[in-house]
């Protein structure tokens, strides 16, 4: 692993994983930067200065460039992230170049994903056909299907991974997707762009989601507009992971997290107490519910009003598992979020099948709700 020594577009320090052969490189790096900075504005080509690499030039290859676009759509927080490809090349032994895309002007922040093999030319005949491995999944839990063209190629120092989404059954469309990929080397890890899907707000780009590859497992970190044919195409460095922390499920930064805290005593026969926090990541898809509430009995919700409604407050029903506070009985309950025609009014309604006035403790704190598929 090495870190950049500078760049001409206002990004911070960039960490690279690399495999450096005599006549080609495999590089992995993810980073982001604000496009409003004057360095980026002035640059014609994005250049990253790095410690001396083994090769001093390469041909042009593709790296992924994306942006975030989270907004309310039909009452729900929805993800409209998008991406495309930029050309990238090794300019000299200390400089990595990336094409500056005019189509990305106006995007406040760009995300670059480098998982590429940079070859040279006139170096002798290539190795020819490589041995491919088909994708065989052990669902943990049920995972999305990948189509038959999906495969990976294992080399001594890197792996080429091609994942192509197949037709996803509706039953799992709102579930987290995670699985072990049989025989996938466990020494590759990283966050990859998962590209695909058309969308109404950024229709000129592909949708952009992210997946995590770690310890032989695939997990879908978040999904935007994925559909049959969405893909990941990556050359991933083996090993060289020292010091790199890859979270299978992302912790969103503070400015993307929305938290509501409720603390209410019993206020009437049908106004149950509750002491819980309710948190969701902006536009997503991940709800966290911790605490306890009183049940109003089967079929009756326990309404908590939300003040200062966040623009991306979700709509719809999500399920978690809780238990009665005496620790004995399992109760299944719903979290129902609702906004009315009044955009400033919202409600969180935990509902439960337990008898009225039973106190329910939530111990499954994570609710995964994918509201886009």
């Amino acid at each position, binding site marked *: 692993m090495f870190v950049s020594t500078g760049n001409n577009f206002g990004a911070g320090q960039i960490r690279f994983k690399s495999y450096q*052969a*005599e*006549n*080609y490189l495999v590089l992995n790096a993810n980073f982001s930067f604000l496009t409003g900075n004057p360095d980026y504005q002035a640059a014609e080509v994005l250049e990253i200065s790095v410690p001396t690499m083994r090769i*001093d*030039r390469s*041909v*042009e*290859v*593709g790296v992924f460039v994306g942006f975030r676009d989270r907004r309310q759509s039909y009452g729900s927080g929805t993800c409209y992230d998008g*991406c*495309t*490809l930029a*050309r990238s090349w090794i*300019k*000299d032994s200390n400089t990595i170049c990336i094409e500056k*895309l005019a*189509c990305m002007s106006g995007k406040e922040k760009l995300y670059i994903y480098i998982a*590429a*093999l*940079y*070859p*040279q*030319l*006139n*170096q*002798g*005949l*290539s*190795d*020819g*056909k*490589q*041995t*491919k491995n088909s994708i065989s999944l052990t669902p943990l839990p049920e995972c999305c299907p990948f189509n038959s*063209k999906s*495969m990976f*190629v294992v*080399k001594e120092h890197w792996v*080429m991974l*091609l994942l*192509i989404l197949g037709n996803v059954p509706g039953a799992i469309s709102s579930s987290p997707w995670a699985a072990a990929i049989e025989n996938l080397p466990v020494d590759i890890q990283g966050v990859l762009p998962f*590209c*695909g899907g*058309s969308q109404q707000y950024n229709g*000129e*780009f*592909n949708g952009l989601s992210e997946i995590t590859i770690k310890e032989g497992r695939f997990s879908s970190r978040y999904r935007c507009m994925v559909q049959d*044919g*969405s*893909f990941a*195409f990556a*050359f991933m460095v083996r090993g060289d992971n020292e010091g790199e922390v890859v979270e299978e499920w992302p912790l969103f930064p503070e400015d993307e997290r929305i938290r509501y805290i409720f603390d209410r005593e019993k206020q009437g026969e049908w106004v149950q107490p509750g002491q819980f926090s309710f948190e969701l990541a902006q536009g997503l898809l991940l709800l966290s519910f911790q605490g306890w509430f009183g049940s109003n009995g089967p079929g009756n919700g326990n309404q908590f009003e939300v003040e200062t409604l966040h623009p991306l407050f979700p709509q719809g029903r999500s399920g978690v598992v809780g238990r009665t506070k005496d620790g004995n009985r399992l109760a299944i309950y719903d979290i129902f979020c609702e906004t009315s025609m009044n955009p400033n009014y919202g409600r969180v309604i935990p509902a439960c099948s337990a008898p009225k006035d039973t106190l329910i403790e939530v111990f499954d704190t994570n609710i995964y709700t994918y509201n886009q598929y």
Partner: protein
Amino acid sequence: MIALPSIAFGGFSGSAKDVTARQVGGRSILSVRSWPTGQTTSAQVVRRASMSKITKSYKTLSDEQMLAWENLAKHTSGQSIFGQKAELSGINLYVRLNVNRVMAAESMILDAPESLNSVPSASYRLAVVSPSMVIFQGIKHQPLPNKFVVKMSAAVSPGISNGWSKTVIISPNAEDDWGEADLTTLYTKTIGLTPVVGQKVFIEVYWMNTATGETGQEVRGSTICLTDEEAAALVGGSRARYTEEDLMPGSTVTECDIEFTTGAPVIFFDVLSQGMDGVAQSEIYVDKPWPENSRGTVYVLNREKKENSYHIGVLNGVIKETYDHKNSAVFNAAAGTIGKPGEIFGAGILV
């Protein structure tokens, strides 16, 4: 005869009959007057005209600019034919660097560079000359702004051992194509004569920093003109590359650069595909066979090249020889969105 002060008292300069005298750094130097031995080439005419123009332009510089050139010249040494370091004047340095820059199609610099850096020596593995081919291979690459300068002579008798004075600049700014430089057209245009098999061609090469005009050490060599068949055998087998020149009818691409000789387990693509009507497919047919062990399915990235549309996807291309002996690569959509026209580029993995 030119009436000037006597040599004995110094100060003599100019030419008379077969003697030329000049004053350099306080020394009086006499030499045999040189006379042009052949017809002036058009390249020489252009060069002499530019040198004259550049020399005259020095007088238009400001005092500060001239001083800067003088200062830089003091820190830069040249070497005279006597093997002793002689001082370079500011105008000498200005002319030398700007002649080189103009030769490389760069604009003149009026302000002296802050400093001059050493330019690497040139190195190449093979120079092949035949009546229809002038190719250098194995050029050791130097990054921009260095350019590869090639001087060559017309083909002369193989018995001549020192013909480097006959070389002229064939290419002042040949950027090597991954270690290769094809100078066939430039050689024919500059020399005006086709090399004759069996005759000798003299060669001088060096790197020039086109930003400053500095040049590196000249490397001299020579080669005997081969037959076209011999030359093709030497150069042809080393690189498995397919460009627009190799495309056959039926191809639906307008730009093509595919190379198998990456030395890595990937194939390089830089192709502009126009696609086909009604079918999400692209076809390439070439007039020479694909390399051995290079038939199979390749997966490579594609980016749409259309105004306001930047969709991306993955193509799978089947590389094979068809039943009717066509060398084909047919690409179909494997993932994502494949728009047309599309740029197929980067490293493709063959499985």
